[in-house]
């Protein structure tokens, strides 16, 4: 016994080191240390980061066991809980979740994540809104109703809502009363048709789902934005923010990604030929383009022209599948607009390339005006491409950059 105790240095390590070690282990291993020896019985109970996910929870045992385990752990836990994350594929809506949220409201939680995968969405209790020190909030599969007395999360830096149901008013108050907000992610949220953002510190924005009327006001710190609309806007859908205002509020953006029907939904009104500003910081632009919609084409050209310092461009081409006949389009207007230089453009990627006239115009335009271009990757559509004809055209295009390489990727079968 004596020799054993001099070899055992681990048990006598100070608290802060043990906490460091525990923070690098899964919840399950942390709790299992309680069987190691008498000294280890309660070393784990003050670990401040509690994470329950499929890695450390027995998936096959289902929801009830998961709830039991979380109850046990919370019952034994002592001290502040800095992080609480529960994201198990087994979790269903139940009243225990409300007990946990209430318990945690006394423990100055800074990071809270709740993910309900199965069953219907969980009605969040209002005590969640009393988490005064919250900095990161992730909610998935919940119904959110804010209390009337809610004054905002004054420390909230990151908010992620996925598959939640909430009203316009709740979303607005959640977003507008968080002055420290730096990251906002909304994925498939049900309810709001309109959102207004004017958070002074917002750096990252990601919106995915049905088209929402987004109104941006002077987001001068926004670095990266990602918009994806899975459905187009209805023609009569309320729009408070027009195209120019929308794009004019994100002037310091560095990376912009637009997917789905977003561009189309924005362009319901008339689109100016030129934007009255430039994105001097924009390094990377990526968008889907419906090559049969003249309006979208003009918007795309407009965006490209307003980004003189662009370094990377990605265009994902898109066309309606039904039309076997290529629509005849007057491209003269587009050609007239294609006049600018990309002094810093190095990499271009074009996907679902079919070889249509408008696509070739784009490539011609970029090749002729990018003096430092290094690579142009062209990835063809899976079928319908007349490769030889198209490559013959590509060969002829003038290139402003002597180093430019056109890489034609093999079609994915």
């Amino acid at each position, binding site marked *: *016994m004596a020799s*054993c*105790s001099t*070899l*055992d*240095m*681990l*048990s006598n*390590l*100070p*608290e*802060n*080191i043990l906490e*460091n*070690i*525990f923070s*690098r*282990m*899964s919840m*399950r*291993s942390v*709790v*299992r*240390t*309680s*069987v*190691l*020896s*008498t*000294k*280890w*019985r*309660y*070393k784990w109970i*003050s670990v401040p980061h509690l994470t329950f996910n499929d890695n450390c929870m*027995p998936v*096959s*045992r289902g929801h009830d*066991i998961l709830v*039991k*385990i979380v109850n*046990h*752990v919370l*019952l*034994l836990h*002592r*001290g*502040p809980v800095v992080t609480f994350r529960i994201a198990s594929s087994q979790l269903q809506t139940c*009243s225990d979740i409300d*007990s946990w949220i*209430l*318990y945690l409201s*006394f*423990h*100055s939680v800074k990071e809270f994540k709740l993910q309900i995968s199965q069953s219907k969405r969980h009605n969040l209790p209002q005590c969640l809104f009393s988490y005064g020190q919250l900095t990161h909030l992730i909610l998935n599969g919940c119904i959110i109703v804010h209390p009337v007395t809610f004054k905002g999360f004054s420390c909230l830096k990151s908010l992620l809502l996925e598959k939640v149901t909430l009203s316009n008013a709740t979303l607005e108050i959640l977003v507008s009363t968080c002055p420290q907000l730096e990251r906002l992610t909304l994925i498939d949220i049900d309810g709001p048709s309109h959102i207004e953002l004017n958070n002074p510190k917002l750096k990252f924005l990601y919106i995915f789902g049905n088209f929402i009327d987004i109104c941006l006001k002077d987001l001068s710190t926004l670095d990266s934005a990602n918009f994806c609309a899975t459905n187009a806007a209805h023609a009569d859908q309320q729009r408070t923010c027009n195209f120019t205002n929308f794009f004019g509020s994100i002037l310091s953006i560095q990376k912009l990604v637009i997917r789905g029907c977003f561009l189309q939904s924005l362009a319901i009104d008339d689109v100016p030929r030129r934007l009255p500003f430039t994105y001097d910081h924009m390094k990377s632009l990526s968008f889907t383009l419906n090559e049969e919609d003249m309006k979208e084409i003009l918007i795309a050209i407009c965006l490209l022209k307003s980004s003189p310092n662009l370094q990377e461009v990605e265009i994902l081409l898109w066309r309606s599948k039904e039309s076997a006949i290529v629509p005849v389009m007057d491209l003269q207007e587009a050609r007239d607009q294609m006049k600018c230089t990309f002094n810093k453009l190095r990499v271009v990627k074009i996907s679902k390339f079919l070889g249509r006239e408008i696509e070739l115009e784009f490539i011609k335009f970029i090749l002729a005006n990018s003096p430092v271009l290094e690579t142009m990757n062209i990835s063809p559509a899976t079928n319908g491409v007349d490769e030889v004809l198209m490559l013959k055209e590509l060969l002829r295009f003038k290139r402003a950059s002597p180093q430019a390489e056109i890489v034609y990727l093999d079609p994915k079968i």
Partner: protein
Amino acid sequence: MSEGEMAIIKPEVMKNFIWLQTADGSIQEVEEEVAMFCPMICREILQTGTGSSKNCAIALPPRVNPAILSLILDYCRFHQVPGRSNKERKSFDERFIRIDTKRLCELTSAADSLQLKPLVDLTSRALARMIEGKTPEEIRETFHLPDDLTEEEKLEPLRNTADDPRIRLLNRLYARKRKELKEKEKMKSVEVEEERVDERSVDDLLSFINGGDGGSKGVRASKHKKKNRRRKDHSKDSSSNSVNKSHREMDDVSSVCHNEDESINVFVTSPSKSVKLQVVDDGFSPKVEFDDGDMDDELDPAMKEELDREVEDFARRLNSDWPERMQEILSSGQERRLVPISMNGNGSLRRYTTVERR
């Protein structure tokens, strides 16, 4: 080489040296830039000016012994060179931590006292890797931990001698956990072998923690709450009498039941919780109810009723057929070694003490 050449070369090669003294009195000299890599040493040099000569060597914290110090200096010597690539540093780190666990723990401890955070993180990562995913037996073997839990693995309700609210509370916890353990055992019979080894142990752990030592756990939890409240209650005089009285009673019971005093200090740092308890306390009658009231705050009424029922049930059974109950419970815990119990009044308590005093 001739003497003249040597004399010319020497000044260029000459570096500044720092003198360090470990707790056992031995003094070493180290190149300055290497020593300055440690924030603690750096601060000592800049603030107090020690270390420049053998007489005023910097006194290192007691956790740093000469062998470990040389390891740490090797680490510093490698990493303080600015030109190294990340890949080089990573491979050095990987080789560096391949030492026996005893020295690894000493290294962590020493690095922490010298505030060398990168090394603390590196060693903690290594230790975490060694613990993660291993069975308790493997971990005990790796780290030479004593396997001294076998007797306490049994669920052991304390005799309800003093009718102390704390003992009632922990008995309540025992009853609950024993019930759940029984349910689990029913479920176990339909499961696959592998799952049994793996998942059940987690549940068992939790239940035996709650049940097996839930006694001292519950006791200790209440004690720490009382301690917190006492500290907070300097100005406020709410329920001070009952708090003091219970605290003294607590001392008698708990001093017998647990050994880890230093862990208590951790709990003092949860101000929000203790403040909350304070608030709750004011509403409850101080003598008997408040302790149960604390725990019940976080349970909904349905659960509370169930627990109350279980407590009564348990108390009844405890008073009537103690020895038979014990044997029944013991036989239901499969892998646990059965230990004969001495069935006198303080039997269980005494066994606790002999375990602790080892």
